[in-house]
């Protein structure tokens, strides 16, 4: 499955739209890494534990989005957007959405 955030896929032509697909996940961040991050917040800088956590969560959201697209029989997801929001204190929602499409190679 090709995933891009442009409106078209280079070298391909969009032959059919399958519709909007989305994936989300909510992660609580104050688990285990809380204490280390709290200490890190005294001196500033990157909070590696949280970076990893959110990267992992975003991958999960993308995978859920891909599963939806596969169900629709799509070849690619175009115009993908990410969004993150703090829903309650200590939990973040990672959200990915895009348009599932069917593709054809140009010149094939």
């Amino acid at each position: 499955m090709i995933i891009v955030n442009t409106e078209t896929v280079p070298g391909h032509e969009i032959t059919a739209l399958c519709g909007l697909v989305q994936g989300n996940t909510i992660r609580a961040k104050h688990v285990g890494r809380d204490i280390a991050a709290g200490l890190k917040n005294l001196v500033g800088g990157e909070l590696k534990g949280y970076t990893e956590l959110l990267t992992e969560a975003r991958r999960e959201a993308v995978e859920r989005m891909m599963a939806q697209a596969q169900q629709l029989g799509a070849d690619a997801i175009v115009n993908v957007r990410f969004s993150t929001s703090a829903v309650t204190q200590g939990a973040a929602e990672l959200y990915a959405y895009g348009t599932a499409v069917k593709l054809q190679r140009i010149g094939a």
Partner: protein
Amino acid sequence: MEAIVGLLCNCGLPLFLAALGLVVGKSVEYSHLRSLAQREEALRSMIATNLRRAPAGHPATSGRLVSGSVVIGSDYFKTLVAGLKKLIGGEIRSYERMLERARREALCRMLESARAQGATTVVNVRYETSNIGGIGSKSPPMAEVVAYGTALIG
């Protein structure tokens, strides 16, 4: 005597933490800026653009989503200074620098990931910044910056 001990107990810890934040925070910031400058130099041949599509005539046959993210936190000293600055309003430089560093770091990571996949151009780059620290004075600001775009393959 008791008054002095009491005063130290009340003010000592915040003062120590502020000093720690100032000294360690500054050194962390400088080493980060140095590493950023080095990596940006190494990535000079990579092109990142927020144009929405591949330039006409680009020989790409496909694209792939690449992203880079970073969570950055403020230090105790910065939080303290920003708290004071908020009383009179105006520009909060320390937070500006913090977010600028985070954006550069995220872009570097995205470009490094694109390079690892054999691409030299990333189009339609977007930044997304979100506050993941809690609300209120008890929790120091923490922000996630993610940069993502489409790496041109082929």
